[in-house]
C-alpha cells in the first residue's frame, strides 16, 4: 500500500541545468587565462594587484552582507568577477592600498547601494575604476614596461606604498600604445598589440587570450555574443572610415581594435548581463552606442582611453533601451508602448 506524503511543486517540474552561480563561475574560468598572461607579462606586481582587488571585493561584500543582516552572497562568485575585472584594469605597479580601496568602492558603491547582484545599474568594477581614476590620476596612469627580466622576483616600491603616503613613482615607466599615439602620434604594431607585447593595464594587453575566453563563454551560451560583435565592429567600421579619410591623422582600425582596454571591455565588461539590455535589438543598439563613444573619446576626447566611460554610459542608457525596444507580442498588431 502506497502511503507517503507527496512533494508538491508548481509547474514546470523540470529545470534546465544552468544556474546563476554556474554562469558566474564560468566567467571566472574564462578570465583565468587573462590573469595568467598578465602575471606572465608583468610578474609578481600584477599578481599582487589582482589578488588584492579580489580580496577587497570579497571582504567588502561579505561584511556589507553581515552588517545588513543578510546571508552572505560571496558564494555566487559575482564579487570574484568584479575583483578580477577591477584588477585587470589597473596598472601593474598600482599601489595595493589603492587597489583595495577601489575594490571597496566597486562593491559598496557600484553594487551594494543598488541592492546587490542583479540591481546594479553600472558595472561595479568600472565604478571602482572610475573612482580610482578621479582620486589618483597619477598613479593610475603610471605604466610599467612588460616582460622585464626581474619581473617574477622584484616587487615594485610603488606597489607597497603606504596609504596616503606620496606614491613612489618607479623610475622606469612605459607609455601605453594609446597614450603614445594620443600625445606623440606613434602607433604600435598590430601584431605586438594582439600578442600582448606592449605596455598597459594588467589585463589589457593580450587580445587573443581575451577573445578566447569570450568564445568559450559564447560556446557555453553564457554570454551574449551580440555585444562584443556590435562594439568591435562599430569601432572597426567607424575608425576604418576615418582612417580612409586621412591615414596621417587617424590611427588604423586594427590599432584601434587591439589597443587599450577595448577587447577586455567589449568581451568581459559590456557583457555584464545586469547592465545591458535584454532584447537582441536593444543589445545591438547598446553595443553600437558604446563603440561610437569609444572612437569619439579616443580620437577627439582629452583622454587617451575611453572604454570605461563608454561602457558606463552604455549601462546608463540600457534601461531606456529596454523601455523603448520591445518585441512585438504574439498576436498583437504593433509594438506595445
Amino acid at each position, binding site marked *: *500500500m*502506497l*502511503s*507517503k506524503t*507527496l*512533494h*508538491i*511543486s*508548481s*509547474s*514546470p*517540474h*523540470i*529545470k*534546465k541545468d*544552468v*544556474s*546563476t*552561480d*554556474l*554562469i558566474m563561475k564560468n566567467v571566472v574560468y574564462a578570465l583565468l587565462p587573462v590573469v595568467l598572461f598578465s602575471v606572465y607579462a608583468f610578474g609578481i606586481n600584477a599578481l599582487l594587484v589582482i589578488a588584492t582587488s579580489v580580496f577587497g571585493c570579497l571582504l567588502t561584500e561579505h561584511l556589507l552582507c553581515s552588517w545588513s543582516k543578510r546571508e552572505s552572497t560571496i558564494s*555566487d562568485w559575482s564579487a570574484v568577477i568584479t575583483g578580477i575585472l577591477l584588477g585587470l584594469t589597473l596598472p601593474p605597479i598600482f599601489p595595493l592600498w589603492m587597489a583595495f580601496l577601489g575594490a571597496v568602492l566597486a562593491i559598496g558603491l557600484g553594487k551594494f547601494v543598488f*541592492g*546587490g*547582484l*542583479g*540591481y546594479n545599474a553600472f558595472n561595479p568594477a568600472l565604478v571602482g575604476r572610475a573612482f580610482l581614476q578621479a582620486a589618483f590620476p597619477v598613479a593610475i596612469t603610471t605604466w610599467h614596461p612588460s616582460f622585464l627580466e626581474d619581473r617574477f622576483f622584484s616587487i615594485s616600491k610603488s606597489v607597497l606604498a603606504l596609504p596616503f603616503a606620496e606614491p613612489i613613482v618607479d623610475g622606469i615607466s612605459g607609455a601605453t600604445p594609446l597614450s603614445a599615439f594620443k600625445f606623440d602620434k606613434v602607433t604600435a604594431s598590430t601584431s605586438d598589440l594582439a600578442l600582448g607585447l606592449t605596455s598597459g593595464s594588467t589585463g589589457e594587453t593580450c587580445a587573443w587570450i581575451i577573445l578566447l575566453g569570450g568564445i568559450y563563454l559564447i560556446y557555453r551560451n553564457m554570454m*551574449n555574443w551580440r555585444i562584443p560583435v556590435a562594439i568591435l565592429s562599430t569601432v572597426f567600421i567607424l575608425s576604418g572610415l576615418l582612417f580612409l579619410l586621412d591615414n596621417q591623422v587617424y590611427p588604423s582600425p586594427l590599432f584601434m581594435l587591439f589597443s587599450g582596454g577595448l577587447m577586455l571591455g567589449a568581451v568581459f565588461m559590456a557583457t555584464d*548581463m*545586469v547592465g*545591458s539590455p*535584454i*532584447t537582441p535589438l536593444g543589445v545591438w543598439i547598446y553595443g553600437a552606442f558604446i563603440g561610437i563613444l569609444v572612437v569619439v573619446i579616443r580620437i577627439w576626447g582629452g583622454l587617451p582611453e575611453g572604454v570605461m566611460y563608454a561602457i558606463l554610459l552604455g549601462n546608463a542608457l540600457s534601461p531606456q533601451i*529596454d523601455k523603448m525596444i*520591445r*518585441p*512585438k*507580442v*504574439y*498576436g*498583437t498588431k504593433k509594438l*506595445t508602448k
Partner: protein
Amino acid sequence: MFNLAKNTFKHGVHPPENKEETNRLPIRQFPFAPLIILPMQQHIGNPSQIIVREGQEVARGQLLAKANGYMSVPMHSPVSGKVRKIANVPVISGQMVQGIYLEPFPFSGQETIEGKPIPLSASPEEILRGIQDAGIVGLGGAAFPTHVKLKIPEGKKCEYLLINGIECEPYLTTDHRVMLEQADDIFMGIRYLLKATGAKEVVIGIEANKQDAADHLVGKIPQDLPVRVQVVPVKYPQGAEKMLITAIIGKEVPSGGLPIDVNTVVVNVATTAEIGRLLPHGQGIQERVITITGPAISKKGNYLIPIGTPLRYVLEQVGASKNISEVFMGGPMMGVSASSLDISIVKGTSGIVVFGDNDVKKTDKIYPCIKCGACVDACPIFLNPSKLGILAKFEAYDSMAEEYNLMDCFECGSCSYVCPSNIPLVQYFRLSKGIIRKRKANIQQKTNA
C-alpha cells in the same frame, strides 16, 4: 511580411524528451479497480448532473450524469457495477467536488451499452450534439468541452482543421501510440469533424520525433479526404494551439482571440480518435490512453485506463517504487502535482509521471534576476518574463496586464525552465493572472450593482 508557413514558431525551449522508454510500448488494457471514483467536475464548465441513485446497478456505458447546460458534458459509467455512494470526492486541486463511488461487479467485462448511432450523414448540429452526448472533452489535458470548441460562431468561417499530434511535453507518448494504433478511428473522427466545422483542409501536425507515426498515418489517408500530414521540428511548446497554428498556416491568433479568428479549429489527435470510435455507436467515453512513466515506475507503458480509476490503484499496478516523491498529472512542463493519491483518473489525464526521492529537483537557491535574457529568448509569445517577474514582486498587476501583456501568457513554463536564477516565474504569473481576473470581476460587479 511573408505569409509563408515557417514550419515552426519562434523561441521555445528544448527540454530532454525522455520518450524512448514508452514510445515503443503498445497500448495495454488496464484492469478494473475494486472501487471507481468519478468526480462530476472533470471538464471546464458546469459539473455534470447525477441522474442515478445510491444502490442502483448500472451497466458499462450507461449514462450516470447528464450535461448541465451547454457548457457541460455528461458522464458515462466506465464499469458495470453498483453505485455505492454519492458524496464528495477529492480532485487534484485539493478541493472536494460531488462524485460517485462505483463498485464494479466481479468479473465484469468490456462489453458496453450502445446508444443511438450518429451517422456521417447527420447535420453539423446533430454531430455536435452527438459529441456532447458522448461526454467528449479535449483529451490533450485542457478538458475543454469539444462541442463548444467546434461550434463555429456566426459570421466566422473554418478553413483549416488542424489535428494536434505534436505531444511536445517530455515523457508523454499517449498521442504517439494513438496515432500508431488507432489510425482508422482518427480518420473516422476527421470525417465527423469536417462535417461539423465545414473545413476545407485538414492538416495533422506531428513532431519529428514521431516520424513512424507520421509515416503510418500518411499510408492510411483515405483517398477522398483532404488530409495531409505535416512533420514539424521538435520544440516545446509546439503543441500549444497558437504555436501549432503559426507553424502550419503561418498566421498569429490575435491577442485575446481564438483560433477561429484565423479560420482554424485545432483538435487533439486522441480526441479525434475518440470521436471516430464513439459516434458511430452512440457511446460515451469510458476510458482513455495514459502514459505512465518516470524514474519511480517499474512497469512503464501506455495504458487504456477506465475513467475514475483511483491514482493509488494505478500506481500499485504499475509497480511504483516505495519512495515516490512527486506525481505529475500531465507532463512535467505544464502538468499539476498530485497532492494525494486518493484522487482518480479523469478525462483530461494525458499522462502520469512519477519521480522518486532522488529524482525531484531540490528546492534550488533563488538568485536575483541577472537580466540574462534567457526567458525573453524562450517565451513563445514574446513577452518579457524578466520584467514581469520584477513587476509581480512589486504587485504592479495593472502594469503587468496593460503594459506587458501578461494575459497573453498561457503558462507553458519555458521561462521558468531556462531561468538560471531559479525564479518561479510561471508561479508568479499564475497568481498575478488570478488576482487580475478577480479585480476585473469585482469592478464588473460594482458597475452592475
